[in-house]
């Protein structure tokens, strides 16, 4: 097996294992990363939502918030795990695609 293929399979294995990244925090009752709370969480913590933060926080709607398919995180842990793996695969694909694209564009400008 070529080196590249071996490493690529390693990435796929990591994606399959990635739900550990939601299961471990779940079992150890850990919340968001520090400073990454949504406006609702922040309101519970300090009693108000800073005005500028409220305005800016809603200006972007990502397609797969929190590495999950829309509403899947509310359908229970199984769907959350499945959604995490699916969006993980998607993310890996996009990241690899963009990296290639940037280097290939790079090649063209070099050869010109």
């Amino acid at each position, binding site marked *: 097996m070529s*080196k*590249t293929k*071996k*490493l*690529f399979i390693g*990435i796929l294995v*990591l*994606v399959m*294992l*990635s739900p550990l*990244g*939601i299961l*471990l*925090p779940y*079992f*150890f*009752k*850990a*919340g*968001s*990363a*520090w*400073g*990454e709370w*949504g*406006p609702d969480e*922040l309101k519970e913590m*300090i009693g*108000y939502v*800073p*005005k*500028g*933060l*409220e*305005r*800016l*926080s809603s*200006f*972007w*709607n*990502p397609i*797969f*918030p*929190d*590495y999950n398919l829309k509403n899947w995180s509310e359908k229970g842990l199984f769907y959350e795990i499945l959604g*995490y793996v699916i*969006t993980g695969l*998607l*993310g*890996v694909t*996009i*990241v*690899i695609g*963009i*990296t*290639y694209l*940037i*280097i290939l564009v*790079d090649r063209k*400008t070099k050869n010109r």
Partner: protein
Amino acid sequence: MHIPDGYLGPQTYGSMFAVMVPLWAKAYSSMKKKVKEETIPLIAIGSAFSFVIMMFNIPIPGGTTGHAVGSVLLSILFGPWTALILTSIVLIIQALIFGDGGITAIGANCFNMAFAMPFVGYYIYRLIRGKSPISSKRSLIGAGVGAYIGLNVAALLTALELGFQPIIAKDSQGLPLYCPYPLKVTIPAMMIEHLLLFGIIEAVVTVLVLYYLVKTGILKEESYHE
């Protein structure tokens, strides 16, 4: 460490973009000169690794979570400028598609995790490794120390950017407009968890992957950018 939208005011996130634009340009032209045909697939796998390793949230029981970033590893393998581009790609995709880190905060997040972290980590690595080969003990120790300090520098920068907000932006009632926590809260909160746990995880991940690449012969005597 991914600052969301709303935590930084326009002065801060605007300045961070302004700082990043020339760095992105320099990194792009530097990568253009260095990349060899045969390393392109490995570089793509490198950015995929950074993406997937950030999905492994590590809990502090009853507290917050954090994760490794991988940008010091990328700088050791491909050089710090290429690491800047690869980590930026990952951070931008995370912000646009997964809402991990804000759109307005892309400049700041890239400065912390794609610029400061791999550069600090890389030069500490080079300092410790000296003239020893990449497979040497000094190289592995250097990778661990570089990763640990690199992640902590990124955490400190994040804490500073967040903690300055209540000083520079208040509403008419004197309440903070953006991140509500001052420096005396953000610095200890960010630094304790990164110094005690997440920095060690970053170091272990970096050393293990480098060791694996050297052991299996995937990585030869020199890294890909030398």
